[in-house]
C-alpha cells in the first residue's frame, strides 16, 4: 500500500517548494516530486567545474515576497541576501554610466551626462514608487473572471475597479501608459541620455521576446521599484551560495514543517478518475495518491503533457495551446583566472581603483544605447541569436568569495537574445557560436577577458528546456505580456490556481502573478487550496 498524502506537489522549483511549505505549515501531509537530482528548478547552484560554483540559470534575487521570507522563516533556514551595490554600463565612447546605491552619488554620476536627467530621475523615481504601490495589491489579489456573473467574480471585479479608481486620475493614467507603452517611449518622456534609457529599458525586456521599442515592455520597469517598497531587505541582491541557496532554504523550511521531498522522481502523468485528479504516476511506474495534486510546472506541461488534453474542455485546451513561451534568453557562465578589466574603469588614480573595486561587486550592463539593444532584438526576431547581445553580468565570487577558489572568479552572464527557434536549431555548433558572440562582444569592453577564461558553460534556451523542463526555455513559464497577465494567466476563468480537473491545481510562474523568484504564485495557490481544496 503506497503512503497516502493530503497533497502532492509536482516539481521542486521555488514555487512548488513554497506551495508545499505553506501546505505543510497548515498541517497537511505533503509530498514534493522533483525530476532532477536537486531541488530548485531554475534556481539552482551547481559546481559545474571543480571549485567553481554557478547559479546556473537564475542569478539574482529580486522580488521574493517579504511575507514568504517571514512566514517560512527563511533566514533561519540559511537565506542570506547580499546587496548588489551598483550597475555599470560601459559606453561605446569609452566612458561609462554608473548607478549606485547612494542617491547623491547616482545623481552626481548622472548629472555628469545630463543635468536634466539628473533632476528627472528623482521625479521618475517618485512616480515609479507610486506605480509600484498601485500595482502591489494586484500581485496579491486573486484575479476575478471578468466574464463571470458569479457574486465572487463580480466582487472581485468591483474590488479591482475600486482599487483602480482609488488611484486618482493622474496615477491611473500613468499606470495605463506603463502597461501599454514601450519602455523606450516611456523613458523618452523622461530622459534624454541614451545610455541611461538603454540600461533602464533593458530591465524591461528580460525574459521577453520583445525589444525596448516594443509596446508592453514599460511596465517591467516597475520591477526594480517593487522590492524597494517592502523595505525589509535590499530588493536586488545576490543569495549567499547562489540562487540555489534560496531554493535550499525554502526546501529546508518545508521539511521543517513536515513536507517530504523526493528528488529523481519524474512524474509521467496525473491520474484522473471521473474527471477528478486522484494521484500521479512516476516514469518508473510508481504511483502516489492524494486528494490535492498541485503542478508547479508550466501550463503546457501541466495540461498538455501530464494530462490527456481530451480530458480538458476544448476552449481551455485551445487557450493553453495559444499561451506563448518564446524563450529568448541564454546564459554564459565563466570560470576566470583573474577579474575582468573594463577599459572604461581603467586608470591609476586612487579614486579610480575605488571605483573599480565597487563596480566589481555590482552588475555590469552591456546596453550602451537603445539602438544597440533594439538591434540585438532585431536579430532574434528573424530567428538569429544577437550578434551583439544585451548582457547583464555579475561576478558572484566578488560578493560571496566561496563561489570560486581563492584568487579565481566566476562570472555570470545573462544574455539576450537567444531565440528558442534559432535558425538551424540549437546544434552544438550554434551553441558555441553563441558563446563566442558573447565572449567577443564582452572582450570589446574588457579586453583581458578571453585570456582569463578557464572554463566556459554556454546555456541556450534549448538547454534551459532540456535541463529544467521550462517549455521553450522561457524563464518565466510563459511571456509576461499584457494578454498573458492577471486574469489571463494562464487562461481566462482559470487564473485562480484551479483547473478544469477537480483536485488538480497549478502554482507555477505560469499563474498570476508569475515571473522571477517572487514566490507569490506558490503562496497564493497554497492559500486557495487550504481555503477551497
Amino acid at each position, binding site marked *: 500500500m503506497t503512503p497516502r498524502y493530503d497533497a502532492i506537489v509536482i516539481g521542486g522549483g521555488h514555487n512548488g517548494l513554497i506551495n508545499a511549505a505553506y501546505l505543510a505549515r497548515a498541517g497537511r501531509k505533503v509530498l514534493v516530486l522533483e525530476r532532477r537530482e536537486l531541488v530548485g528548478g531554475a534556481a539552482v547552484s551547481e559546481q559545474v567545474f571543480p571549485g567553481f560554483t554557478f547559479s546556473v540559470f537564475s542569478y539574482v534575487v529580486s522580488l521574493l515576497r517579504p511575507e514568504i521570507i517571514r512566514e517560512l522563516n527563511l533566514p533561519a533556514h540559511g537565506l542570506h541576501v547580499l546587496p548588489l551595490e551598483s550597475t555599470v554600463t560601459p559606453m561605446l565612447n569609452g566612458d561609462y554610466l554608473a548607478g549606485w546605491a547612494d542617491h547623491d552619488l547616482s545623481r552626481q554620476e548622472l548629472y555628469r551626462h545630463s543635468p536634466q536627467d539628473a533632476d528627472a530621475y528623482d521625479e521618475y523615481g517618485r512616480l515609479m514608487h507610486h506605480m509600484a504601490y498601485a500595482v502591489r495589491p494586484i500581485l496579491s489579489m486573486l484575479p476575478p473572471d471578468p466574464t463571470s456573473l458569479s457574486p465572487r467574480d463580480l466582487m472581485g471585479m468591483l474590488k479591482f475597479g475600486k482599487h483602480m479608481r482609488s488611484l486618482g486620475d493622474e496615477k491611473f493614467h500613468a499606470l495605463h501608459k506603463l502597461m501599454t507603452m514601450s519602455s523606450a*517611449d516611456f523613458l523618452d518622456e523622461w530622459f534624454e541620455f541614451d545610455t541611461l534609457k538603454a540600461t533602464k529599458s533593458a530591465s524591461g525586456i528580460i525574459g521577453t521576446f520583445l525589444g525596448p521599442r516594443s*509596446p508592453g515592455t514599460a511596465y517591467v520597469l516597475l520591477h526594480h521599484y517593487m522590492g524597494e517598497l517592502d523595505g525589509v531587505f535590499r530588493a536586488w541582491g545576490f543569495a549567499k551560495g547562489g540562487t540555489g541557496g534560496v531554493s535550499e532554504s525554502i526546501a529546508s523550511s518545508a521539511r521543517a514543517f513536515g513536507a517530504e521531498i523526493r528528488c529523481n522522481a519524474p512524474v509521467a502523468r496525473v491520474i484522473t478518475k471521473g474527471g477528478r485528479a486522484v494521484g500521479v504516476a512516476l516514469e518508473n511506474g510508481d504511483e502516489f495518491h492524494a486528494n490535492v495534486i498541485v503542478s508547479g510546472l508550466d501550463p503546457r506541461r501541466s495540461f498538455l503533457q501530464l494530462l490527456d488534453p481530451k480530458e480538458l474542455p476544448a476552449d481551455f485546451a485551445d487557450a493553453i495551446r495559444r499561451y506563448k513561451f518564446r524563450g529568448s534568453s541564454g546564459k554564459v557562465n565563466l570560470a576566470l583566472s583573474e577579474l575582468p578589466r573594463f577599459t572604461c574603469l581603467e586608470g591609476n588614480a586612487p579614486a579610480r581603483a575605488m571605483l573599480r573595486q565597487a563596480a566589481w561587486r555590482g552588475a555590469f550592463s552591456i546596453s550602451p544605447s537603445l539602438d544597440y539593444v533594439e538591434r540585438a532584438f532585431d536579430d532574434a526576431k528573424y530567428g538569429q541569436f544577437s550578434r551583439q547581445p544585451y548582457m547583464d553580468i555579475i561576478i558572484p565570487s566578488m560578493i560571496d568569495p566561496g563561489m570560486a577558489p581563492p584568487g579565481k572568479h566566476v562570472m555570470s552572464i545573462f544574455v539576450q537574445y537567444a531565440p528558442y527557434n534559432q535558425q538551424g536549431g540549437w546544434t552544438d555548433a550554434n551553441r558555441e557560436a553563441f558563446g563566442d558572440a558573447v565572449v567577443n562582444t564582452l572582450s570589446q569592453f574588457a579586453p583581458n577577458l578571453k585570456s582569463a577564461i578557464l572554463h566556459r558553460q554556454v546555456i541556450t534556451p534549448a538547454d534551459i528546456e532540456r535541463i529544467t523542463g521550462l517549455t521553450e526555455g522561457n524563464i518565466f513559464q510563459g511571456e509576461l505580456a499584457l494578454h498573458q497577465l492577471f486574469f489571463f494567466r494562464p487562461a481566462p476563468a482559470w487564473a485562480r490556481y484551479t483547473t478544469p480537473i477537480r483536485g488538480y491545481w497549478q502554482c507555477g510562474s505560469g499563474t498570476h502573478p508569475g515571473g522571477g523568484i517572487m514566490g507569490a504564485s506558490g503562496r497564493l495557490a497554497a492559500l486557495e487550496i487550504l481555503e477551497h481544496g
Partner: protein
Amino acid sequence: MNPAVQVRRAAYDAIVIGAGVNSLAAAATLAKAGRTVLVLERRAAVGGAGSALEIEPGFHADAAYDDIGWIPSSLVRDLDLTRHVRIVSSAMPVVAADGNDASLTFTASGPDLDGLRRLSPRDASRWPEFAGRVAAIAGFLRTLYAAPVPDTALDQAGDLRTALRLALKYRGLGRRDMVEVLRVLPMSVAEWLDDWFEHPLLKGALAARGVTHSAFGPRAAGTAFVFLHHQVAARPGAMRSGLRVEGGIGAFAAGLARAAQAAGAEVRTGAEVRRITAARGAVDGVELASGERIAAARVVSGASPRHTFLELCDPARLEPGFVHAVSRIRYRGAFARVHFSLDGLPPLGGDRASGALVAPDMDYLERAADDAKYGRASERPFVRAFVPTVADPSRAPEGKHVLSAHVQYAPYRLREGRWDDAGREALGDRVMDTLERYLPGLKALVRRREVLTPVDLEREFGLPEGHAYHGELALDQAMFMRPVPACSHYRSPVRGLYVCGPGAHPGGGTAGVAGANAARTVLADGAP
C-alpha cells in the same frame, strides 16, 4: 480683461478652426442645433488632408488618403448628408500579390474564399470564424467611438449613460468575445494572426491593416488594436470601407461644408488663425494672421493638439503638467503618398480590381518598419496602391488613369539626409521600383508623379510630423488618453476651447466622428 472684447458682444457662438472633415462635421452639428458658427480655414479650399490634388491638368487624386473610413449612419442622418454627398457602396477589389505567383483578392466583404482555399484550405476554413470575431469586436468599438469616452469617475449623467451602453454592448458580446476583446487589444497583430492563419500572403495583407498610419511593425503589441480600429469602417478583412464618395475624398468635405452652410454656418477660406485669444482662463475669440480679431464664446479646434495648445494658445498660460503632456504626444508620422498619372490602366491583376497591395508577408512589413526605427525610409516599403479611375473614370481624361500609393515607412525624422527634393525623388523612385516588381508594366504607363513626403504633408495639411491622425494611434494614446487625459472629452483646460480633430477620440480613419462628438459636448455644456 481686454477692453476691446468687453464692449463687443461675441459675434459667433462658436468658431471652428480648420475645415477638415472633423471640423466641418463639428460646424454642421453646431449649426444644426441653432448655433451661429464660423469656420476658418487657412487653405484656399475646404477639406484639409481630405482634399483632392491635381497631378497634371485633368488628373485628380486624393491627396493624403483615399478611403473615407467609417461614416456612422447617425452622422449621415443628423447632417442630412445624402442631400450633399453621394456615397455609394462599392466592391473595389484589391489584389495582394507576393511578387511570385500567388495573389489574393480582397473585396469589400473580405478575401476571395475560392482563391484563399487554393492558397490554404485550412485558412479558408477558419476565415468565417475569424471574421465573426472581428465583426463582434469592431462592433463594440463602434459603440465606444460613437460618443465621448465615459469619464472614469462617471460623475456626469452622460458618462453614466455611455458607460451603461458600453457595458450592455460588452455583455452582449457573449463570454467568448468578451474575453477576446480584452485579450486581443493589447496583442500584436502578428501574434494574433499567427493564432489563426498560416498563409503568409493572407497574414501580410491583414497585418498591413494593423500597421497602417503607425510607425510600428506588425510584431509590436497594440497593433491588433490598430487593426480592429481600421475594421470599424470595413467588413472583416476588407481592405477598404466599402463606401465610395462620388467625386473622391475631396467631394465628401465639400459636401459636409455645404451641409454646414445649409444649416447656417459661415465658412471662410484663406483665413489663417494665428492665435486663440483668452482672458481670465476663458477663450474670447481668435486673431487671424491678417490681424483681424473675431470674438466668440467657444472655439473648437480641428488643428492638432500640439498646434492648438502650444502655438495658437500661449503655453505660458497653461499649467506646466498639461503643456508637458501635450508636448509629449507621439506623432511619428511614417507614411508618404506617391501619385501617378498614367497613360493606361495599370496591371492590377484582377477583374475590376481597383487597388493593389504590396505586403507579401508579415516579415516584409516588420523589416520595412525596422528601417523606420533607425530613421530610414524602408528599403522595401509596404505600398497600398489605389486606382480611383476604375470606379470613377471622370477623375482622369478618357482612357487615362490615376494611381495613388500609400507608402510606409517614410519616417518624418530621418537620421541621414532630409526630405528635400533629392529625398523626395529617391522615395518616388523606390516606390516606382517596388510597384514595378509587383505590377510589371506599370512603369511604362507613368506620365507624371507627385510625391508627398511626411514633411510635405505637414506643411500642406498641418499634419503634425506628417501623422494623418494628428497623433499615433496606440493603446496609450487612445480613448481616455486621447489626445491627453485632460481633454479626452473634447474640453480643454482653457474654458470654452474644445478639440475636435482626429487627435481626439476616436482618432483618424473615421469620417467626422470626433468632430460630431466634440460638437455634442459643446452643446451639452450649454450657453457659455
